[in-house]
């Protein structure tokens, strides 16, 4: 929600929390998934450690920024960037929906491009939704559609 008063302490707490969660989610887990996939599914970009680190660091920076600046205009491009980066990440990690495994003389190729389009749909929508959401809030605050402020807590 935009236009809310958020204390600096709360912002820092959110940012630290985002840092911990995103480090685990985007660096630690993908690293071990990549180790598991290495040799099994060589086409997946997750098997390349530099891919995991680069994207993991980018995700973490953007998510921490978005958490720190939550409710402010500057968080909008950060949220959209995370969403778009997720699309690129999923696309690269799955080799565009074409994965292959070769084991003891048998080759198995899996293609799921249409399914991939469906899977990245929420991320694409999230990238579009962030600026739209901000614009709607701004408009509502300017035109005074929102109800008059009520003091709930002091």
């Amino acid at each position, binding site marked *: *929600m935009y*236009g809310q008063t958020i204390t600096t302490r709360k912002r820092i707490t959110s940012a630290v929390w985002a840092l911990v969660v995103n480090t685990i989610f985007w660096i630690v887990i993908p690293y071990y998934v990549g180790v598991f996939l290495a040799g099994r599914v060589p086409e997946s970009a997750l098997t390349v450690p530099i891919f995991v680190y680069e994207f993991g660091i980018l995700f973490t920076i953007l998510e921490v920024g978005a958490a720190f600046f939550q409710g402010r205009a500057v968080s909008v491009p950060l949220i959209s960037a995370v969403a778009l980066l997720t699309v690129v990440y999923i696309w690269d990690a799955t080799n565009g929906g074409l994965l292959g495994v070769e084991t003891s003389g*048998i080759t198995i190729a899996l293609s799921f491009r249409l399914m991939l389009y469906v899977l990245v749909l929420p991320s694409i929508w999230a990238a579009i939704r962030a600026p*739209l959401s901000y614009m709607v809030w701004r408009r509502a605050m300017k035109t005074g559609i929102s109800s008059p*402020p009520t003091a709930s807590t002091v």
Partner: protein
Amino acid sequence: MQVKRKTPMGIWALRGVTVAIALIVLLVVGSVVYSAYEDYSAVKAELAGGSKQAVGAAVLRGSMETVSINITVPNNGLYPLNVTLTCNYPTSNVVCQRTSVDVSPGGEGVLRFRMTVSDVSQFENSGNQVINGTVAISMTPFVGLTVGTDFGGFVKPGGA
């Protein structure tokens, strides 16, 4: 002082779209996973010797051998299933008949695969007894699985 604001209609609309997209993704992924599991279980049961087993025969006539495999493909999933069998060999000594079957949900189809080896002794002495076979299973339109394996094992020197 914390300020409570009424959520604008536009935000509710955006939330509605988000929920709709989430439901679509959940439905598609759920149905594909369910279908894949059901089809896999059915085919596995079929190959393990269920009610209608996969029937294979290698008939030797002179030096020519014909390998015939009839597989009943059930489709217990929610999406149409297409199964295609092909193979290739560097020389014309081995000829495969590309075969394909479309099975609608709830139905079953029979895949009739034929492979002809013109000269079995030549095939055995050629030094290359690997026939690259491909089994393509496609759960239209979302997922396709292609398995490449050696069909050379189907060729029995004395027929079977």
